[in-house]
Protein backbone atom coordinates (compact mmCIF):
# COMPACT_ATOMS: atom_id res chain seq x y z
CA UNK A 1 0.00 0.00 0.00
CA UNK A 2 1.54 3.23 -1.12
CA UNK A 3 0.79 6.72 0.16
CA UNK A 4 2.29 9.86 -1.35
CA UNK A 5 1.85 13.45 -0.24
CA UNK A 6 3.07 16.65 -1.72
CA UNK A 7 3.21 19.67 0.57
CA UNK A 8 3.86 23.27 -0.24
CA UNK A 9 3.74 25.54 2.81
CA UNK A 10 5.71 28.73 2.79
CA UNK A 11 7.52 28.20 6.11
CA UNK A 12 8.65 24.59 6.18
CA UNK A 13 8.83 23.12 2.71
CA UNK A 14 9.58 19.44 2.66
CA UNK A 15 10.43 17.53 -0.47
CA UNK A 16 7.87 15.12 -1.80
CA UNK A 17 7.88 12.15 0.57
CA UNK A 18 6.28 8.73 0.68
CA UNK A 19 6.43 5.37 2.37
CA UNK A 20 5.52 1.76 1.82
CA UNK A 21 5.11 -0.83 4.58
CA UNK A 22 5.25 -4.64 4.81
CA UNK A 23 7.14 -5.02 1.59
CA UNK A 24 9.63 -7.73 2.62
CA UNK A 25 8.35 -10.98 4.09
CA UNK A 26 11.07 -12.15 6.46
CA UNK A 27 11.41 -9.23 8.91
CA UNK A 28 8.65 -8.74 11.48
CA UNK A 29 8.20 -5.21 10.19
CA UNK A 30 9.59 -3.38 7.18
CA UNK A 31 9.17 -0.10 5.42
CA UNK A 32 10.73 2.21 2.89
CA UNK A 33 10.80 5.95 3.33
CA UNK A 34 11.48 8.26 0.41
CA UNK A 35 12.25 11.99 0.78
CA UNK A 36 12.81 13.53 -2.63
CA UNK A 37 15.52 11.27 -4.03
CA UNK A 38 16.79 9.98 -0.68
CA UNK A 39 15.46 6.49 -0.09
CA UNK A 40 15.94 4.12 2.88
CA UNK A 41 14.71 0.55 3.33
CA UNK A 42 14.16 -0.52 6.94
CA UNK A 43 13.58 -3.95 8.44
CA UNK A 44 12.76 -4.74 12.07
CA UNK A 45 13.20 -8.08 13.82
CA UNK A 46 11.82 -8.35 17.31
CA UNK A 47 11.26 -9.23 20.03
CA UNK A 48 13.74 -12.03 19.35
CA UNK A 49 16.55 -13.97 21.01
CA UNK A 50 19.52 -12.07 22.29
CA UNK A 51 23.11 -13.15 22.98
CA UNK A 52 23.72 -13.69 26.68
CA UNK A 53 26.56 -11.15 26.62
CA UNK A 54 24.22 -8.46 25.32
CA UNK A 55 21.08 -9.23 27.30
CA UNK A 56 19.67 -6.78 29.84
CA UNK A 57 17.72 -8.35 32.69
CA UNK A 58 14.74 -5.99 32.72
CA UNK A 59 14.60 -4.50 29.21
CA UNK A 60 14.90 -5.39 25.56
CA UNK A 61 18.23 -4.70 23.83
CA UNK A 62 17.94 -2.48 20.76
CA UNK A 63 20.47 -2.95 17.96
CA UNK A 64 20.67 -0.78 14.88
CA UNK A 65 22.62 -1.53 11.73
CA UNK A 66 23.00 1.01 8.97
CA UNK A 67 24.33 -0.38 5.71
CA UNK A 68 25.68 2.27 3.35
CA UNK A 69 24.99 2.07 -0.37
CA UNK A 70 28.62 1.16 -1.11
CA UNK A 71 31.31 -0.39 1.02
CA UNK A 72 31.29 -1.55 4.61
CA UNK A 73 29.83 0.42 7.51
CA UNK A 74 32.40 2.83 8.89
CA UNK A 75 32.74 5.31 11.75
CA UNK A 76 30.16 7.68 10.26
CA UNK A 77 27.55 4.91 10.17
CA UNK A 78 28.31 4.01 13.79
CA UNK A 79 27.63 7.57 14.89
CA UNK A 80 24.29 7.53 13.01
CA UNK A 81 23.46 4.13 14.50
CA UNK A 82 23.97 5.54 17.99
CA UNK A 83 21.50 8.36 17.24
CA UNK A 84 18.86 6.01 15.79
CA UNK A 85 19.32 3.44 18.56
CA UNK A 86 18.92 5.86 21.44
CA UNK A 87 15.87 7.48 19.81
CA UNK A 88 14.24 4.06 19.34
CA UNK A 89 15.11 3.07 22.92
CA UNK A 90 13.27 6.09 24.28
CA UNK A 91 10.22 5.49 22.08
CA UNK A 92 9.80 1.72 22.55
CA UNK A 93 8.34 0.16 25.69
CA UNK A 94 11.40 -1.98 26.29
CA UNK A 95 10.43 -3.20 29.75
CA UNK A 96 7.64 -5.29 28.18
CA UNK A 97 10.23 -7.59 26.60
CA UNK A 98 13.09 -8.26 29.03
CA UNK A 99 16.04 -10.36 27.83
CA UNK A 100 14.97 -9.95 24.19
CA UNK A 101 16.37 -8.07 21.27
CA UNK A 102 14.87 -5.61 18.80
CA UNK A 103 17.04 -5.25 15.70
CA UNK A 104 16.52 -2.39 13.24
CA UNK A 105 18.35 -2.71 9.95
CA UNK A 106 18.51 0.27 7.62
CA UNK A 107 19.75 -0.03 4.06
CA UNK A 108 20.63 3.14 2.15
CA UNK A 109 19.15 2.85 -1.32
CA UNK A 110 20.01 6.37 -2.41
CA UNK A 111 21.47 9.34 -0.57
CA UNK A 112 20.45 12.80 -1.78
CA UNK A 113 20.67 14.70 1.51
CA UNK A 114 18.81 14.47 4.85
CA UNK A 115 20.04 10.89 5.29
CA UNK A 116 19.77 10.65 9.09
CA UNK A 117 16.23 12.09 8.97
CA UNK A 118 15.14 9.58 6.38
CA UNK A 119 16.69 6.75 8.45
CA UNK A 120 14.74 7.78 11.55
CA UNK A 121 11.46 8.14 9.65
CA UNK A 122 11.93 4.75 8.00
CA UNK A 123 12.79 3.18 11.38
CA UNK A 124 9.62 4.59 12.95
CA UNK A 125 7.41 3.31 10.14
CA UNK A 126 9.06 -0.12 10.33
CA UNK A 127 8.58 -0.29 14.12
CA UNK A 128 4.90 0.59 13.60
CA UNK A 129 4.63 -2.10 10.94
CA UNK A 130 6.17 -4.65 13.31
CA UNK A 131 3.56 -3.74 15.90
CA UNK A 132 6.08 -3.11 18.67
CA UNK A 133 4.55 -1.18 21.57
CA UNK A 134 5.78 2.42 21.72
CA UNK A 135 4.96 5.27 24.08
CA UNK A 136 5.26 7.87 21.36
CA UNK A 137 6.12 8.08 17.67
CA UNK A 138 9.01 10.12 16.35
CA UNK A 139 9.88 11.79 13.11
CA UNK A 140 12.95 13.64 11.98
CA UNK A 141 13.60 16.88 10.06
CA UNK A 142 16.91 18.25 8.77
CA UNK A 143 17.57 22.00 8.50
CA UNK A 144 20.48 23.51 6.58
CA UNK A 145 21.68 27.07 7.22
CA UNK A 146 23.09 28.53 4.01
CA UNK A 147 26.07 30.87 3.96
CA UNK A 148 23.68 33.87 3.71
CA UNK A 149 21.79 32.76 6.84
CA UNK A 150 18.74 31.33 5.09
CA UNK A 151 17.21 28.20 6.65
CA UNK A 152 16.32 25.38 4.24
CA UNK A 153 14.35 22.35 5.43
CA UNK A 154 14.94 18.85 4.04
CA UNK A 155 18.02 19.87 1.99
CA UNK A 156 19.31 17.94 -1.00
CA UNK A 157 22.91 16.72 -1.06
CA UNK A 158 23.94 19.79 -3.06
CA UNK A 159 22.25 22.17 -0.61
CA UNK A 160 23.94 20.36 2.31
CA UNK A 161 27.35 20.76 0.72
CA UNK A 162 26.84 24.49 0.17
CA UNK A 163 25.49 25.15 3.66
CA UNK A 164 27.52 26.34 6.60
CA UNK A 165 25.58 24.35 9.20
CA UNK A 166 23.41 21.25 9.16
CA UNK A 167 21.02 20.44 12.01
CA UNK A 168 19.00 17.23 12.32
CA UNK A 169 16.30 16.93 14.95
CA UNK A 170 14.01 14.08 15.97
CA UNK A 171 10.66 15.31 17.33
CA UNK A 172 8.28 13.28 19.47
CA UNK A 173 4.61 13.01 18.61
CA UNK A 174 3.10 13.74 22.03
CA UNK A 175 4.66 17.00 23.15
CA UNK A 176 6.62 17.99 20.03
CA UNK A 177 9.85 18.22 22.03
CA UNK A 178 13.32 17.53 20.71
CA UNK A 179 14.28 13.86 21.21
CA UNK A 180 17.52 13.80 19.26
CA UNK A 181 19.80 16.48 17.96
CA UNK A 182 22.82 16.04 15.70
CA UNK A 183 24.55 19.07 14.24
CA UNK A 184 27.58 19.96 12.16
CA UNK A 185 28.87 23.44 11.41
CA UNK A 186 28.65 26.48 13.67
CA UNK A 187 25.55 28.58 14.27
CA UNK A 188 24.17 31.07 16.77
CA UNK A 189 21.65 30.36 19.53
CA UNK A 190 18.93 32.30 17.66
CA UNK A 191 19.45 30.21 14.55
CA UNK A 192 19.18 27.07 16.69
CA UNK A 193 15.85 28.20 18.18
CA UNK A 194 14.54 29.08 14.72
CA UNK A 195 15.52 25.69 13.33
CA UNK A 196 13.86 23.88 16.24
CA UNK A 197 10.64 25.86 15.68
CA UNK A 198 10.70 25.14 11.95
CA UNK A 199 11.36 21.45 12.57
CA UNK A 200 8.49 21.22 15.04
CA UNK A 201 6.16 22.78 12.47
CA UNK A 202 7.36 20.47 9.72
CA UNK A 203 6.95 17.45 11.99
CA UNK A 204 3.17 18.14 12.10
CA UNK A 205 2.96 17.23 8.42
CA UNK A 206 4.90 14.01 8.88
CA UNK A 207 2.86 12.93 11.92
CA UNK A 208 -0.34 13.59 9.97
CA UNK A 209 1.09 11.40 7.22
CA UNK A 210 1.79 8.58 9.72
CA UNK A 211 -1.77 8.85 11.01
CA UNK A 212 -3.28 8.85 7.52
CA UNK A 213 -1.23 5.90 6.33
CA UNK A 214 -2.13 3.78 9.38
CA UNK A 215 -5.80 4.76 9.06
CA UNK A 216 -5.85 3.84 5.39
CA UNK A 217 -4.13 0.54 6.04
CA UNK A 218 -6.34 -0.68 8.86
CA UNK A 219 -9.63 0.59 7.43
CA UNK A 220 -9.46 -2.19 4.84
CA UNK A 221 -9.19 -4.94 7.49
CA UNK A 222 -12.51 -6.10 8.83
Amino acid at each position, binding site marked *: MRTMMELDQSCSVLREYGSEQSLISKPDGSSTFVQGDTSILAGVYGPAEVKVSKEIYDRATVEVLIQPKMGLPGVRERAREQ*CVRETCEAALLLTLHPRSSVTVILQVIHDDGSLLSCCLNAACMALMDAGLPMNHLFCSVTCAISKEGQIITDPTARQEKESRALLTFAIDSVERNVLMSSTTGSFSVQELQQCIAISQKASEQIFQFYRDSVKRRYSKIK
Partner: protein
Amino acid sequence: MAAGFKTAEPLEYHRSFLKENCRPDGRELGEFRPTTLNISSIATADGSALVKIGNTTVICGIKAELTTPPNDAPNKGYIVPNVDLPPLCSSRFRPGPPGEQAQAASQFIADVIESSHLINTEELCIEKAKLCWVLYCDIMCLDYDGNLLDACVVVLLAALKNAQLPQVTINKETDLAEVDIQKKRPLKINRHPVGSSFAVFDDSIIIVDPTAEEESLSTALLTVVTDEDDRLCAIHKPGGTSLSGEKLQHCINRAITRNKEISKLVDKVIKSMKTAK
Protein backbone atom coordinates in the same frame (compact mmCIF):
# COMPACT_ATOMS: atom_id res chain seq x y z
CA MET B 1 23.53 0.79 55.31
CA ALA B 2 23.73 3.42 52.60
CA ALA B 3 26.01 1.15 50.58
CA GLY B 4 23.39 -1.61 50.67
CA PHE B 5 20.65 0.78 49.53
CA LYS B 6 22.90 2.06 46.76
CA THR B 7 23.49 -1.45 45.36
CA ALA B 8 19.89 -2.58 45.66
CA GLU B 9 18.12 0.55 44.38
CA PRO B 10 20.66 2.79 42.62
CA LEU B 11 18.01 4.98 41.00
CA GLU B 12 16.15 5.65 44.27
CA TYR B 13 19.49 6.35 45.96
CA HIS B 14 20.32 9.03 43.39
CA ARG B 15 16.80 10.41 43.46
CA SER B 16 16.99 10.96 47.23
CA PHE B 17 19.99 13.24 46.65
CA LEU B 18 18.51 15.04 43.66
CA LYS B 19 15.43 15.90 45.74
CA GLU B 20 17.76 17.95 47.98
CA ASN B 21 19.35 19.55 44.88
CA CYS B 22 22.70 17.85 45.34
CA ARG B 23 24.50 14.70 44.25
CA PRO B 24 26.09 11.69 46.01
CA ASP B 25 29.59 13.14 45.63
CA GLY B 26 28.50 16.42 47.27
CA ARG B 27 28.35 18.53 44.11
CA GLU B 28 25.58 20.96 43.17
CA LEU B 29 23.47 20.13 40.11
CA GLY B 30 25.33 22.71 38.03
CA GLU B 31 28.84 22.07 39.32
CA PHE B 32 31.65 20.58 37.27
CA ARG B 33 34.25 18.32 38.84
CA PRO B 34 37.73 19.80 39.37
CA THR B 35 39.54 19.87 36.03
CA THR B 36 43.32 19.58 35.78
CA LEU B 37 45.41 19.85 32.65
CA ASN B 38 48.96 18.83 31.87
CA ILE B 39 50.69 19.39 28.54
CA SER B 40 53.77 17.93 26.85
CA SER B 41 53.25 14.72 28.81
CA ILE B 42 54.50 12.57 25.93
CA ALA B 43 58.02 13.55 24.89
CA THR B 44 58.05 11.48 21.67
CA ALA B 45 54.86 13.05 20.30
CA ASP B 46 54.73 16.33 18.39
CA GLY B 47 52.11 17.59 20.84
CA SER B 48 50.37 16.04 23.78
CA ALA B 49 48.10 16.79 26.71
CA LEU B 50 46.50 14.98 29.63
CA VAL B 51 43.25 16.09 31.21
CA LYS B 52 41.46 14.92 34.33
CA ILE B 53 37.85 15.86 34.95
CA GLY B 54 37.27 14.35 38.39
CA ASN B 55 38.35 10.74 37.87
CA THR B 56 37.94 10.70 34.10
CA THR B 57 41.46 10.75 32.65
CA VAL B 58 42.05 11.26 28.94
CA ILE B 59 45.37 11.65 27.15
CA CYS B 60 45.98 12.89 23.61
CA GLY B 61 49.10 12.50 21.50
CA ILE B 62 49.60 14.21 18.15
CA LYS B 63 51.90 12.76 15.56
CA ALA B 64 52.56 14.61 12.31
CA GLU B 65 53.48 12.70 9.17
CA LEU B 66 54.04 13.72 5.57
CA THR B 67 51.78 12.56 2.78
CA THR B 68 50.26 13.70 -0.51
CA PRO B 69 47.21 15.96 -0.27
CA PRO B 70 43.73 14.61 -1.11
CA ASN B 71 42.75 14.67 -4.77
CA ASP B 72 39.65 16.75 -4.24
CA ALA B 73 41.43 19.37 -2.09
CA PRO B 74 45.06 19.58 -3.19
CA ASN B 75 45.77 22.63 -1.04
CA LYS B 76 44.68 21.06 2.23
CA GLY B 77 46.18 18.67 4.76
CA TYR B 78 44.53 16.09 6.97
CA ILE B 79 43.65 15.99 10.63
CA VAL B 80 42.60 12.53 11.76
CA PRO B 81 41.23 12.11 15.29
CA ASN B 82 40.74 8.71 16.86
CA VAL B 83 39.22 7.99 20.25
CA ASP B 84 40.22 4.74 21.91
CA LEU B 85 38.45 3.21 24.90
CA PRO B 86 40.74 0.39 26.02
CA PRO B 87 39.64 -2.27 28.54
CA LEU B 88 41.97 -0.50 30.99
CA CYS B 89 39.63 2.42 31.54
CA SER B 90 36.49 0.51 32.50
CA SER B 91 35.19 -3.03 32.84
CA ARG B 92 32.42 -2.29 30.35
CA PHE B 93 34.89 -2.17 27.42
CA ARG B 94 36.15 -5.48 26.10
CA PRO B 95 39.38 -6.01 24.12
CA GLY B 96 38.97 -6.14 20.36
CA PRO B 97 37.88 -3.75 17.62
CA PRO B 98 36.56 -0.35 18.74
CA GLY B 99 32.98 -0.47 19.99
CA GLU B 100 30.13 1.84 19.11
CA GLN B 101 30.88 4.36 21.83
CA ALA B 102 34.50 4.80 20.72
CA GLN B 103 33.56 5.14 17.06
CA ALA B 104 30.72 7.57 17.78
CA ALA B 105 33.11 9.63 19.93
CA SER B 106 35.71 9.67 17.11
CA GLN B 107 33.07 10.87 14.66
CA PHE B 108 31.92 13.51 17.16
CA ILE B 109 35.46 14.86 17.59
CA ALA B 110 35.99 14.92 13.81
CA ASP B 111 32.74 16.87 13.43
CA VAL B 112 33.73 19.35 16.17
CA ILE B 113 37.09 19.98 14.47
CA GLU B 114 35.36 20.69 11.19
CA SER B 115 32.40 22.63 12.57
CA SER B 116 34.47 24.95 14.72
CA HIS B 117 37.18 25.52 12.07
CA LEU B 118 39.69 24.75 14.81
CA ILE B 119 42.63 24.90 12.43
CA ASN B 120 42.88 25.82 8.76
CA THR B 121 43.73 22.64 6.93
CA GLU B 122 45.25 24.88 4.23
CA GLU B 123 48.03 25.63 6.69
CA LEU B 124 48.91 21.95 6.80
CA CYS B 125 49.68 21.97 3.11
CA ILE B 126 53.37 22.38 2.32
CA GLU B 127 53.23 22.29 -1.46
CA LYS B 128 50.02 22.14 -3.41
CA ALA B 129 49.20 18.64 -4.72
CA LYS B 130 52.62 17.36 -3.67
CA LEU B 131 53.16 17.39 0.07
CA CYS B 132 51.10 18.04 3.16
CA TRP B 133 50.98 17.22 6.85
CA VAL B 134 48.61 14.67 8.28
CA LEU B 135 48.04 15.11 12.01
CA TYR B 136 47.09 11.89 13.75
CA CYS B 137 45.38 12.81 17.01
CA ASP B 138 45.14 9.72 19.18
CA ILE B 139 42.90 10.26 22.17
CA MET B 140 42.98 7.49 24.70
CA CYS B 141 40.90 7.22 27.83
CA LEU B 142 42.83 5.94 30.83
CA ASP B 143 40.05 6.09 33.41
CA TYR B 144 36.38 6.24 32.44
CA ASP B 145 34.18 7.97 34.99
CA GLY B 146 31.64 9.66 32.72
CA ASN B 147 31.79 12.81 30.61
CA LEU B 148 34.13 11.42 27.99
CA LEU B 149 33.25 13.88 25.23
CA ASP B 150 34.07 17.02 27.22
CA ALA B 151 37.43 15.62 28.23
CA CYS B 152 38.24 14.64 24.63
CA VAL B 153 37.47 18.12 23.31
CA VAL B 154 39.60 19.84 25.98
CA VAL B 155 42.53 17.45 25.62
CA LEU B 156 42.52 17.78 21.83
CA LEU B 157 42.49 21.58 22.04
CA ALA B 158 45.35 21.62 24.55
CA ALA B 159 47.41 19.11 22.57
CA LEU B 160 46.99 21.07 19.33
CA LYS B 161 48.00 24.29 21.08
CA ASN B 162 51.05 22.48 22.36
CA ALA B 163 51.97 20.88 19.03
CA GLN B 164 55.09 22.05 17.22
CA LEU B 165 55.68 21.15 13.58
CA PRO B 166 59.17 21.18 12.05
CA GLN B 167 59.89 23.31 9.01
CA VAL B 168 59.72 21.41 5.72
CA THR B 169 61.18 22.59 2.42
CA ILE B 170 61.20 20.81 -0.89
CA ASN B 171 64.61 20.61 -2.48
CA LYS B 172 64.12 21.89 -6.04
CA GLU B 173 66.80 19.64 -7.52
CA THR B 174 66.08 16.29 -5.91
CA ASP B 175 62.35 16.96 -5.42
CA LEU B 176 62.58 15.42 -1.97
CA ALA B 177 61.31 16.87 1.27
CA GLU B 178 63.84 18.19 3.75
CA VAL B 179 62.72 18.30 7.34
CA ASP B 180 64.48 20.70 9.68
CA ILE B 181 63.94 19.33 13.21
CA GLN B 182 65.66 22.32 14.81
CA LYS B 183 63.21 24.89 13.43
CA LYS B 184 59.77 24.26 14.88
CA ARG B 185 56.68 26.40 14.72
CA PRO B 186 53.37 26.02 16.59
CA LEU B 187 50.02 25.51 14.86
CA LYS B 188 47.66 28.42 14.40
CA ILE B 189 44.49 27.69 16.39
CA ASN B 190 41.55 29.78 15.14
CA ARG B 191 38.87 28.87 17.63
CA HIS B 192 38.65 27.37 21.08
CA PRO B 193 35.72 24.95 21.20
CA VAL B 194 34.85 23.66 24.66
CA GLY B 195 32.21 21.05 25.42
CA SER B 196 29.81 20.70 28.35
CA SER B 197 27.90 17.51 28.95
CA PHE B 198 24.58 17.17 30.74
CA ALA B 199 22.48 14.22 31.86
CA VAL B 200 18.70 14.30 32.13
CA PHE B 201 17.09 12.41 35.01
CA ASP B 202 13.44 11.38 35.00
CA ASP B 203 12.74 13.79 32.12
CA SER B 204 13.01 16.88 34.30
CA ILE B 205 16.19 17.24 36.34
CA ILE B 206 19.33 18.26 34.47
CA ILE B 207 22.73 17.62 36.00
CA VAL B 208 26.05 18.84 34.70
CA ASP B 209 29.16 16.67 34.19
CA PRO B 210 27.67 13.23 34.98
CA THR B 211 29.82 10.46 36.46
CA ALA B 212 29.69 6.98 34.92
CA GLU B 213 26.99 5.89 37.42
CA GLU B 214 24.86 8.95 36.75
CA GLU B 215 25.22 8.41 32.99
CA SER B 216 23.98 4.83 33.24
CA LEU B 217 20.95 5.86 35.31
CA SER B 218 20.05 8.93 33.27
CA THR B 219 17.29 8.97 30.67
CA ALA B 220 19.11 11.23 28.18
CA LEU B 221 22.57 12.72 27.59
CA LEU B 222 23.37 16.04 25.94
CA THR B 223 26.69 17.62 24.93
CA VAL B 224 26.90 21.28 23.91
CA VAL B 225 30.09 22.58 22.29
CA THR B 226 30.56 26.36 22.14
CA ASP B 227 33.42 28.49 20.94
CA GLU B 228 34.73 31.73 22.38
CA ASP B 229 32.30 33.89 20.35
CA ASP B 230 29.35 32.12 22.00
CA ARG B 231 28.54 30.36 18.74
CA LEU B 232 27.41 26.75 18.94
CA CYS B 233 29.62 24.18 17.23
CA ALA B 234 27.68 21.10 18.20
CA ILE B 235 24.45 20.15 19.94
CA HIS B 236 24.86 16.41 20.37
CA LYS B 237 21.91 14.63 21.88
CA PRO B 238 21.95 11.10 20.49
CA GLY B 239 18.40 10.28 21.65
CA GLY B 240 16.74 9.49 24.93
CA THR B 241 13.83 11.34 26.49
CA SER B 242 12.74 14.68 25.11
CA LEU B 243 14.06 18.05 26.23
CA SER B 244 12.00 21.26 26.20
CA GLY B 245 13.27 24.45 24.56
CA GLU B 246 13.84 26.33 27.83
CA LYS B 247 15.84 23.50 29.40
CA LEU B 248 17.99 23.38 26.27
CA GLN B 249 18.56 27.14 26.54
CA HIS B 250 19.56 26.72 30.19
CA CYS B 251 22.14 24.10 29.16
CA ILE B 252 23.52 26.36 26.44
CA ASN B 253 23.97 29.20 28.94
CA ARG B 254 25.86 26.89 31.30
CA ALA B 255 28.03 25.73 28.40
CA ILE B 256 28.94 29.33 27.54
CA THR B 257 30.12 29.94 31.11
CA ARG B 258 32.13 26.71 31.07
CA ASN B 259 33.85 27.79 27.85
CA LYS B 260 35.31 30.82 29.61
CA GLU B 261 36.55 28.73 32.58
CA ILE B 262 38.27 26.15 30.39
CA SER B 263 39.79 28.73 28.01
CA LYS B 264 41.38 30.43 31.02
CA LEU B 265 42.74 27.10 32.25
CA VAL B 266 44.24 26.17 28.87
CA ASP B 267 45.82 29.62 28.45
CA LYS B 268 47.27 29.48 31.95
CA VAL B 269 48.87 26.10 31.33
CA ILE B 270 50.29 27.07 27.93
CA LYS B 271 51.72 30.29 29.40
CA SER B 272 53.28 28.42 32.31
CA MET B 273 54.98 26.09 29.84
CA LYS B 274 56.48 29.04 27.97
CA THR B 275 57.78 30.74 31.15
CA ALA B 276 59.21 27.43 32.40
CA LYS B 277 61.26 27.17 29.20
